């Protein structure tokens, strides 16, 4: 079998994640979906690194994880403070560009 299938899988996961971002209202779930998309990308990178036979792809994936970690930290912090201020984690409630 050809590692290109990993790419198909990545594409699939990415799309699912994106769709999730669009349809879910709960900010936390939205975040998870973002994570899912990131992971899909990582998978693609890894697969590519295998295809090209060098490690740069993995490096990028690694950095992606780090950045994802940072992003999650900040994002969740935001969600928490949001929840504190309005007792809901729905992204639709934040439709007024202000808290």
């Amino acid at each position, binding site marked *: 079998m050809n590692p290109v299938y990993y790419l198909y899988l990545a594409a699939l996961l990415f799309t699912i994640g994106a769709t999730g971002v*669009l349809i879910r209202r709960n900010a936390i779930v939205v975040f998870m979906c973002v994570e899912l998309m990131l992971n899909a990308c990582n998978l693609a990178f890894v697969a590519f690194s295998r295809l090209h036979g060098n490690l740069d792809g993995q490096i990028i994936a690694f950095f992606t994880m780090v950045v994802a970690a940072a992003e999650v930290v900040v994002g969740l912090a935001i969600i928490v403070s949001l929840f504190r201020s309005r007792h809901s984690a729905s992204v*639709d409630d934040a*439709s*007024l*560009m202000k808290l």
Partner: protein
Amino acid sequence: MQNLIALLVAAPLLGAAVLLCGGRRLDRSGHLIGTLLAAVSFVIGVVLFSDLLGRGADDRTLNQHLFSWVPVGGFRADIAFQLDQLSMTFVLLISGVGTLIHIYSIGYMEHDERRRRFFGYLNLFLAAMLLLVLADNYLLLYVGWEGVGLASYLLIGFWQHKPSAATAAKKAFLVNRVGDLGLSIAIMLMFTTFGTFAFGPVLHSVGDAGEGRLTAIGLMLLLAACGKSAQVPLQSWLGDAMEGPTPVSALIHAATMVTAGVYLITRSGALFNAAPTAQLAVTVVGAVTLLFGAIVGCAKDDIKKALAGSTMSQIGYMVLAAGLGPIGYVFAIMHLVTHGFFKAGLFLGAGSVMHGMNDEVDMRRYGGLRKHMPVTFVTFGLGYLAIIGFPGLSGFFSKDKIIEAAFAKGGTEGWVLGGAALLGAAITAYYMTRVMIMTFFGAERWRNAATTSPDEPSAEPAAEHRGEHAEPHPHESPRSMTIPMIVLAFGSVFAGAFFGIGDRFLRWLEPVTGHQEGNSPVGAATVTIATMVLLVVGAGIAYLQYGRRPVPAVAPRGSLLTRAARRDLLQDDFNHVVLVRGGEHLTRSLVYVDHTLVDGVVNGTAASFGGLSGRLRRLQNGYARSYAVSMFGGAALIVAATLLMRAV
């Protein structure tokens, strides 16, 4: 010597500047300054005149080039003066009569707190008028032309608190503007035809231009002349212009400004000679006006308006003569000068009468004044004799010549024009006699000044002043007023003879205007006799009407013609209905259109855009997720695009 020319204009201009900008501190001395500077320019005029006399008949043209005024491409207008016999004649007339009238005004305007301003305006007028006759190109002439228009506007409206005066002033300026339209178009035509509009080049290269263009230019010049000289159909302003102080009427609306049209036509003689059609138009206008004015003059009870009518008709004579071409120019100018004398004299007389009668202008409230103001009576009488052309007085010489020339035109035109001129002479005799009798003879109708004034549009100024004093006390005017009248009387008596006998004037002007003897179908003697007869008839009728029977204090209803004539032969009504009303409606509707249509279209588009944006705004619902959708869609599109690119 020619460097003096500029001073002619400069002196009164300086006066105007000083008096108008000087402020109240000059109220004391203002009138003296004004008069002095007017006199100065007269003296300079005399000096130059003597210089010209000293020269040969052919090099009597002085030029002074001050500086290039508007040089743009082929368009060259200079501030340059040209003094030849024609201009000289006018200079002397203008500055001479002007000075006299300055002197007269000292007395006449004594009690007006704005006298300084009045003299400033008078000086301004002198400067403009001198510029008009001294300019050596049409554009500079145009400056003078409008300048006198402005001066007359200011002077007619001098008593601005009177709405009638303000309106009259505006009317005068506007009608003049219509004339100026003609002048400026004429200048443009000259520029396109000759590439210049300086007198010399234009008049010399007339031969090269097509007659069509020349006719057009001529007609435009005629239009200008009509405006300034109150010829039909632009005469309507002159009557109202009598709202101004009487000296103004004497100086501007009798002696000088209104003759500018004649000057223009004579000055462009060469051009008219080459355009017979235009000439014919000129003669027709002249003939019509001289009758028109005369008829109006017969009907007016306001002494000044009666005189205004006569002015109109006298200028009609001049224009007629000028239209006759080389056979007429000289006599046109000659009549112009003599008319300048006696008409100014008559107006000053009228002013003096009004002065004595608390500014009463209605002749029906005069009568028997000869005992109370003898000097006025005598001078006015001499002027009267002069204007009706009493043998030996100046009017006789000049007018007679014109009538002859009119016949000399030859053909039916000649007969028609000549006949008109003769008829005009008769009517002149009639209305002048009427004025004379109503004013100085008969019962003293002012004794019981209680009855109301005839309801006649031209009587408001009188109405304003009536009732101030129950009964006027006629008295002779101060010396400052009588002296000018006496001088002018002299002029009106002897000028004609001095010019006419031995053709002095003819020889003087001929180099400029050119002259040719017309071959009159009827001998000069015949014409003279005919004139005399008609004169006697006209005067006689007037005597029978007003001398024998007492003059009713209230104007009788009169015949249809009379009533029409009282209303300036319905000219004003016509203007009002057609121009004023029409114009008002036009502007009103335009204002409406501008608000609704022009503005509406734009606002409409704006509104539709607003609606559109209102729809689009719905997309911006603030939900992060719907933004995300569009982002995602965009991303998809981009991917699609890249794939397509790579596929292609």
